[in-house]
């Protein structure tokens, strides 16, 4: 379990007061959701493919020990060095040993949420290793001393003007807010790094037990350059990333790009099956895979929640989540955000540290509708909420309110009396004075409708009869 401390509430208040941020997040997520819909609707077997990938993931997770051992054996046969890391510290020590042994001064990194999870950059930079993110979005957030605010689009919260100013300040270049020019600046700086780095670090999208290889999916070609230019390559892989064999991959590729960005296919899928320098006279002389647990086996131990390990990190659930759309990714204060984030936060950080996370959902169900591998997110969110309540971590006020609600809502006459009283009461107390949990000066309580449902319903019925 991670020992990270998070502060969701303060971050939410901060996010809600930033109108530009909310606008940027809403615009980006809404347009990606539209592209996603257009692409998925054109695939006539989309739903069947979702069921298929769900079943494949279920098989992998239910037999994880066997697949891990098989992957290890076959990867070793391919000349890949396999390391096992129980947590972030373990993984960092392994990486530091590899870097020391190879006299590494510069590392190029390609987008990897697993390494964000263990705060790898901080560690490497602290050890005097120049560590550079090479995915454009990641490069931008790294320059801005931030972490990604979205699983797929790390700099989604920043405008082109923000990025122009950032480049001017940090890279000493004239200001521009033209995306093509900004990209050219980053491309030039990063090309130098690719050519001089001694080591690269990537994540893993899928690894194949049957042949001991793995693949990295991307659009920019930064992962490819990371994999092929430095002499040492290290892939940090969550233990759940396995597939039985390469034969299952096309089903996942069919779902991943449309769900993530609305593309039919990602630009590049890189397959790594061992060191290539000796064989091809280019590429790494050493390939290492670090199999990271970091709380995953604990998630596996819960037979209800283990389904959350099926996630392929496409980010589709974030894009449709009304809560994420309002507060953006940084408000969650951890690596994973949105509907999948709020199921993972309490599981990784523990129920006390992660007690607020499962409540960041309207339970509208949109996340479950879009999840390519059919994770029943709302069901898991409810389960985690139940855990918080059962372990007495809910506030006395909430408990009292819920008990009152149960009593009132199960007795119609009492309900009518209660709502009449409340309606009357609110004409004496202005809503801004109602200090209800979840409401504050950035988000005021909307008040109770003066007419109420019953009155409106009978009025509607009467109108219909008269017509």
């Amino acid at each position, binding site marked *: 379990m991670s020992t990270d401390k998070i502060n969701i509430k303060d971050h939410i208040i901060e996010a809600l007061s930033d109108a530009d941020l909310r606008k940027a997040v809403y*615009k*980006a997520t809404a*347009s*990606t959701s539209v592209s996603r819909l257009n692409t998925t609707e054109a695939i*006539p*077997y989309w739903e*069947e*493919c979702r*069921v298929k990938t769900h*079943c494949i993931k279920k098989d992998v997770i*239910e*037999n994880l*020990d066997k697949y*891990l051992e098989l992957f290890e054996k076959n990867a070793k046969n391919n000349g890949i060095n396999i*390391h*096992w*890391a129980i947590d972030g510290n373990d993984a960092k020590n392994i990486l530091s040993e590899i870097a020391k042994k190879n006299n590494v001064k510069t590392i190029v990194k390609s987008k990897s949420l697993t390494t964000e999870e263990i705060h790898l950059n901080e560690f490497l930079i602290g050890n005097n290793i120049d560590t550079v993110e090479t995915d*454009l979005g990641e490069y931008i957030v790294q320059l801005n001393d931030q972490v990604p605010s979205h699983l797929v*689009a*790390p*700099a989604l919260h920043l405008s*082109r003007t923000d*990025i122009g100013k950032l480049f001017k300040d940090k890279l000493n270049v004239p200001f521009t807010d033209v*995306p*093509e020019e900004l*990209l050219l600046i980053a*491309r030039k700086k*990063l*090309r130098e790094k690719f*050519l001089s780095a001694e080591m690269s670090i990537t994540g893993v999208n899928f690894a194949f037990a049957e*042949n001991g*290889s793995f693949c990295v999916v991307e*659009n*920019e*070609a*930064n992962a*490819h350059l990371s994999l092929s*230019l430095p002499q040492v390559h290290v892939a940090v892989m969550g*233990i759940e990333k396995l597939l039985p064999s390469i034969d299952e991959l*096309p089903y996942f*590729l069919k779902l991943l790009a449309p769900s993530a*960005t609305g593309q039919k*296919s990602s*630009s*590049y*899928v890189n*397959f790594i*099956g*061992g060191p290539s*320098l000796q*064989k*091809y*006279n*280019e590429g790494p002389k050493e390939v290492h895979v670090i199999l990271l*647990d970091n709380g995953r*086996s604990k998630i*596996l*131990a819960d*037979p209800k929640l283990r*389904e959350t390990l099926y996630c392929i990190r496409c980010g589709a659930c974030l894009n449709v989540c009304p809560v994420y759309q309002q507060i953006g990714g940084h408000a969650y204060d951890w690596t994973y955000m949105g509907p999948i984030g709020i199921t993972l936060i309490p599981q990784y950080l523990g129920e006390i540290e992660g007690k607020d996370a499962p409540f960041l959902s309207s339970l509208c169900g949109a996340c479950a509708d879009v999840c390519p591998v059919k994770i029943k997110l709302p069901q898991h969110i409810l389960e985690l909420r139940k855990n918080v309540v059962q372990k007495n971590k809910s506030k006395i006020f909430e408990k009292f309110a819920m008990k009152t609600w149960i009593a009132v809502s199960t007795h119609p006459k009492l309900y009518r009396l209660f709502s009449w009283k409340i309606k009357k009461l609110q004409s004496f107390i202005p809503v801004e004075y109602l200090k209800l949990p979840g409401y504050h000066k950035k988000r005021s309580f909307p008040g109770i409708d003066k007419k109420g449902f019953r009155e409106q319903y009978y009025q509607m019925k009467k109108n219909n009869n008269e017509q």
Partner: protein
Amino acid sequence: MSSREKILSQVKSALRTKSHEEESKITIDELLKSKINLTVKTNKNDLISQFQTEIKKVNGDSIVVKSNLEASNKINEILIEAKENQIAITDQNICTEVRLNIQKGNSNLQFIIANNLDSKERKEKISQLKTAIVQADYAVSEIAQLVFLYDNSKTSYPHFLCDFVIALVKVSNLMPNQFTLFEKIDKVKALNMVLVTGPSRTADIEKVLVLGAHGPRKLIVILIDE
């Protein structure tokens, strides 16, 4: 206890409790297969035109030719128009034939054969070149994807370090979709490969699409229909 033993024992003990998810009684495989099959194009001309339509959508381009000689002539025209005089190329069979054909008529062009350079020199030299000619082993028409097997090309520097890539592929190696590709592909060669769909791209700045993020900005595929 080593980390390996710890992780495996934790995983094994976690799996002693069975998942709460109900076993699915329906098998989806037959239905899925039949639905996928309905989308498969089998006619050669349909596959070509699908590839050409799809590559446009991902900002690439394509030309269909009837022979390696015609491919050579087309490439020569493109290179003259681009005013290129140094080209990176691989030593695969079609690339070699095309190179020799072009050199016969255009002695101003200098070809740098990536495979002939040692590792360090290859990196330095190819990264300074703008244009590359490469050979794909397969193409997938449904998504305009090219498949490069390292066992055959033994390099990927021309494919990724140059700004403008011209890729040659035989129409006989055009697969309808990735499902057929993965059935057909040699599993040992598939250990090290890369699948490429269009030029490199990013939309990380306000979702504006910009080509040439870190890899090529321009990709032309020459489909050789012998």
